């Protein structure tokens, strides 16, 4: 089999104009070829320029560090969420897992446990939460939207049972410093370092490994992926597990950053994360998107919220803006494709004679 040569097969019609005739001049990079994630990156750049230029307090070191610190929870969870959405699934329980992780952290701290023991336990808890989601989806074949709406409520409820309405604030100072401090001489919070490491890993996994390739294949057509020997269920399960772990990590960071463990930490975080990921051009139906786009989406949303606060836009109005952005982000790429198609059709129609119209 290995020595199957082209010559054997092609002998009969070797003179044929076969593979790869790039004869057709490529129709230029018109509107259709501008990628949505590039658009979002450009929007982010423009927004940053405008904010630096016109919003007085924006460029202050303290504000930039607030911006990044407040955006990091979103940025962390967006990493696995992008992979999950690319694989055609979604996890709405991430905010609750973060809250549960924080609540457990607070209650174990109250019980006198060392923080070095608590953090691994929290991550383990996140793993379990993610596995529960993943098993319900892959083993029982339930839609992930429904499953994670359920576990979103359940995990939040458990968090409340664990910690009640207490808040735990008296964590060790070095840890709190790590959560809210910044690298000397820069505006970067310490926590940006582990995030950057995770982001590099995530980008490599999604865009430069077989796992990433398989995720896109599963998202685009789970059936074809399964026929190609990809272990669809296992892949989905491991993505839910990773999302759980990162959500729990985010919960730990949240507690340290805001120096407060409460059961309602990170409430509503799932919506911002999903909004940012979709804004970044990751297709809700799966199979398309880039992590670069998602990260640009996260920081676009984070910067927008920060800038709006600086110019005294009310919290309610900010929510409206976020909602509109989400709708635009889902519409944008589709409208772009539609437009490109229409332009192409006009052009090809315009090149021929106009057909005769009947009376």
């Amino acid at each position: 089999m290995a020595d199957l040569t082209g010559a054997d097969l092609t002998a009969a019609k070797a003179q044929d104009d076969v593979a790869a005739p790039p004869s057709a001049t490529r129709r230029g990079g018109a509107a259709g070829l501008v990628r949505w994630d590039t658009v979002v990156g450009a929007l982010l750049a423009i927004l940053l320029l405008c904010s630096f230029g016109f919003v007085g307090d924006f460029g202050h070191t303290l504000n930039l560090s607030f911006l990044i610190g407040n955006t990091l929870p979103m940025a962390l969870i967006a990493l696995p969420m992008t992979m999950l959405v690319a694989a055609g699934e979604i996890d709405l329980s991430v905010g609750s897992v973060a809250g549960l992780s924080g609540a457990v952290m607070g209650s174990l701290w109250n019980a006198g446990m060392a923080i070095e023991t608590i953090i691994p336990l929290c991550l383990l808890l996140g793993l379990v939460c993610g596995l529960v989601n993943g098993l319900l989806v892959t083993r029982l074949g339930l839609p992930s939207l429904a499953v994670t709406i359920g576990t979103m409520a359940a995990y939040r409820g458990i968090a409340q049972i664990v910690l009640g309405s207490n808040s735990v604030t008296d964590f060790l100072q070095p840890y709190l410093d790590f959560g809210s401090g910044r690298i000397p001489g820069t505006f970067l919070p310490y926590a940006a370092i582990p995030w950057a490491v995770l982001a590099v890993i995530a980008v490599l996994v999604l865009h430069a490994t077989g796992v990433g390739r398989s995720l896109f294949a599963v998202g685009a057509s789970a059936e074809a992926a399964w026929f190609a020997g990809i272990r669809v269920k296992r892949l989905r399960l491991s993505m839910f597990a990773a999302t759980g772990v990162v959500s729990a990590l985010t919960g730990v960071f949240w507690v340290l950053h805001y120096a407060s463990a409460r059961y309602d930490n990170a409430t509503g975080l799932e919506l911002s994360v999903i909004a940012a990921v979709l804004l970044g051009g990751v297709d809700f139906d799966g199979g398309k998107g880039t992590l670069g786009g998602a990260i640009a989406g996260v920081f676009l949303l984070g910067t927008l919220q920060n800038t709006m606060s600086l110019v005294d836009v009310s919290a309610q109005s900010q929510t409206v803006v976020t909602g509109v952005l989400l709708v635009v982000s889902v519409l944008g790429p589709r409208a772009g494709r539609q437009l490109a198609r229409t332009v192409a059709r006009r052009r090809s129609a315009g090149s021929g004679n106009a057909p005769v119209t009947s009376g």
Partner: protein
Amino acid sequence: MTHSEPDGVPVLALEGVSRSFGAVRALQDVSVRLFPGEAHALAGENGAGKSTLIKTLAGVHRPDKGRVLLDGRPVVFHGPADARDAGVAVIYQEPTLFPDLSVAENLFMGRQPRRSLGRVDHAAVRSATARLFQQLGVDLDPDRPARGLSIADQQLVEIAKALSFDARVLIMDEPTAALTGSEVARLFRVVRTLLERGAAVLFISHRLEEVFALCQRVTTLRDGRLVSSEPVAGLTEDGLVRRMVGRDLDELYPKQPAELGEVALSVRRLTREGVFTDVSFDVRAGEIVGLAGLVGAGRSEVARAVFGVDRWDAGEVLVDGVALTRGAPSKAIAAGMALVPEDRRAQGLVMEMSIARNIGLTGLRATTTAGLMNRGAERDRALDWAVRLQVKFARLADTVGTLSGGNQQKVVLAKWLATGPRVLIVDEPTRGIDVGTKAEVHRLLSHLAGQGVAVLMISSDLPEILGMADRVLVMHEGRITAEIPRAEATEETVMTAATGRERSAA
């Protein structure tokens, strides 16, 4: 080229039509004339422009150049609804009915006769449907739900619908691809009834014998250009094939005698409850085993279970003597098995991914170094196989959805041959692909067997089974009912076993 056409005005015609998509010229200066009472065949390889021609007639595409003539007068169809209102109906290969509605409701969807207060007049719907079926000589219950109708019956419902619109032109795009022999015969009876009533029919099929059986005139396209338009009488199959591919075809079934090696695939008493029972067979290295049977006999289901896509309930599958884990395609692939599935669009390919990535999906391990994908290696692997199989494409980065059906099938084959399989299962390897590509696929299968690959070939195309297989297994209702050596395999012996030893109605 236009000699001996019937006198009079064609009911629908294209005149010098050109249509391009981007840089691709799908049709160039093509004319075709459809006359009342005449069945007109449209022949050509995949990618020759048949679909574009149909869609132009049906109002989906507008010509860049040239005219559409209705009763000799130029018209512009602004959409399929315009064409339908002008009496042009298209029957597609796989009709789309509403499964939960009754046959009659499907027929009159959106234009039900009303009684007072806007209530649907169910009695009128039912009787009108029954009348249509009677005109067509079809025995279908108007009240039964569309769900569960065979594809053949669904097509008849579509034809009845066309009739209810007073369609004068009926365009049938590969209606027989998924039909059994007796269903084809029934479809042809109905079409002949329509022809007698003065309808014009445009018929597309890759089965040449059907063209000769049904049609009076054939128009051949090649690479978007008109090759010929002539009466079927006086034409031979070889002649038609030559017009389609532009050259003499090598033998369509270039099967070489095989040198059989050891047993490569061994299936032992495999059972999946309610689907197939007690299926046992061996395939030796170098052997092509044909798996024949009627649609629904369980052939594809056996292939899916053997490959691990579906689980089996009892029995075992061995590759080179080693038992496979059930329900695990990845294990089957690791053992050296490959499956080219029945439905290439849903199962064989990820349609929105590129050619390179589709071929690459089966080689993610092979093209990974130190944990990261080597894109150069992935590209080389894909290009290598795309060229060997003569896939016609512009760029490897194009999505497979832009390729013609035959080229898509070659990409599926490339994807699997790149894994260097020892056991290759092909399920309907040439369904819906043109004669030229078909011969290439056959040559490839024969060549692979010559290289020592064990091939299991499922096909509903009887000449293909008889032409290619060293041995024919026949399934009927989930069981293997016959094993016929090449020398004794004839249409008669295979069909007898496939129909459970009854005479087929056809």
